[in-house]
Structure formats: C-alpha cells, structure tokens
C-alpha cells in the first residue's frame, strides 16, 4: 500500500515569493494535517483538515493557508515568504479528525528561503 506522498521533495524560493506544497494521504484516510519542523525541534502543528473542512489551526500567521480537495489530497500555501519559513514541511494523514487516531507522516518537503 502506498504511504503518504508529498511534492515537491525540495524547493528553493526567495523572500517575498509564494509557495504551494502538496500532499496525498493514505488511501482511505480522510484527514490531513500539516506540520513545520525546523532543525533540532519537534514538528509544529499548522493545520488539520477533515472532509474539506478545517478542524484545527496552530499558531501561525495568516500567510499560511491550506485546503483539502474532494479526493482528500491537500495543499499548503505560504505567501510572502520569510527567511524563517525555511524548514521541513510534513504532511500526516489519519482516518478521521481529532487526535485519537494514528497519524502517519509523509517524507516531507524541504523548503529553503533565500
């Protein structure tokens, strides 16, 4: 069975640009969560989506937005990139919303902002 997939694997952008990251969950999973992980730290929660609706939002500025599509795949958008946005962006899929079921992580997208 295919796991969680993310694209692209790596991305280099300059300050002020916009970026879109993509995630496809495990087949049968209806919830997708996004995390930001900077070097040496644990993943930091950005969003959770279930059935195309936002079910959780972390402490991130409005420059960060996301959406989920009818096939349960998801996009994370970041506008007006800052140097501090450089990080590994992880997507995790789970059967349903909430935190009472396992989340499985994808390989991540490494974003570098110059």
């Amino acid at each position, binding site marked *: 069975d295919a796991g969680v997939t993310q694209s692209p694997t790596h991305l280099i952008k300059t300050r002020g640009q916009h970026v879109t990251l993509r995630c496809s969950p495990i087949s049968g999973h209806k919830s997708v969560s996004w995390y930001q992980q900077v070097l040496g730290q644990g993943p930091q929660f950005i969003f959770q989506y279930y059935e195309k609706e936002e079910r959780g939002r*972390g402490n991130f500025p409005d420059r960060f937005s996301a959406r989920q599509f009818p096939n349960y795949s998801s996009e994370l958008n970041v506008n007006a990139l800052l140097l501090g946005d450089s990080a590994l962006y*992880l997507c995790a899929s789970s059967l349903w*919303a909430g935190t*009472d079921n396992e*989340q499985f*992580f994808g*390989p991540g997208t490494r974003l570098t902002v110059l």
Partner: protein
Amino acid sequence: QQPVQSPQAVILREGEDAVINCSSSKALYSVHWYRQKHGEAPVFLMILLKGGEQKGHEKISASFNEKKQQSSLYLTASQLSYSGTYFCGTGSYSGAGSYQLTFGKGTKLSVIP
C-alpha cells in the same frame, strides 16, 4: 503548550533499557510517540488514549497517567536500530471541533555496540 520531554539525550549500549518521559500542563486526550531518524520523516510508534486504550508496535510499551498528564515510553533490550530522536505528541481539544497535536522537543537516543 509544548509537552516537556526528559531526558534530552541518552546513550545506551545494545541490550540496555531506557525510559523516556513526557509531561504536559494541559488536559490530554491522547499521547502519541514517534521516532525520527536523521533526514527521515517521523515514524509512528504508539498512541495512548484516555481510558487506557493503546495501539502500537508489539515490542514497544508505554504508559499514560491521565491524572498527572504524563506518559512514559519504555524501550527494553535496545538494538542499534532504536537510535533516533523520539518525540511525544500530546493531543488536545480546544473547542468547536478543533484539535491539535503538540510535539515536544524530542529525546535523542543513541545505541552503541
């Protein structure tokens, strides 16, 4: 608020045991444990739920004290493959159907021959 993990780092010889602790100041619905190796994504190990239900790998055990809002991960007879950074994630509910999984800073475990 971010859960606190201890110790920050530990070195074991193959075959030794270790305990990693995770504590939170918030009421918890669940505790999740993950292991991440350098350059890789976190790998699910175990989830512990309020009421005592647990799901995870057979060779890994953990406890969840709901009253104290603490969890511990027990690694027995460690193998070289156990090396990595272990993260606990605490599940909380902030109302209006909003959930959040908050991770600690991690515990770096190194197993040496």
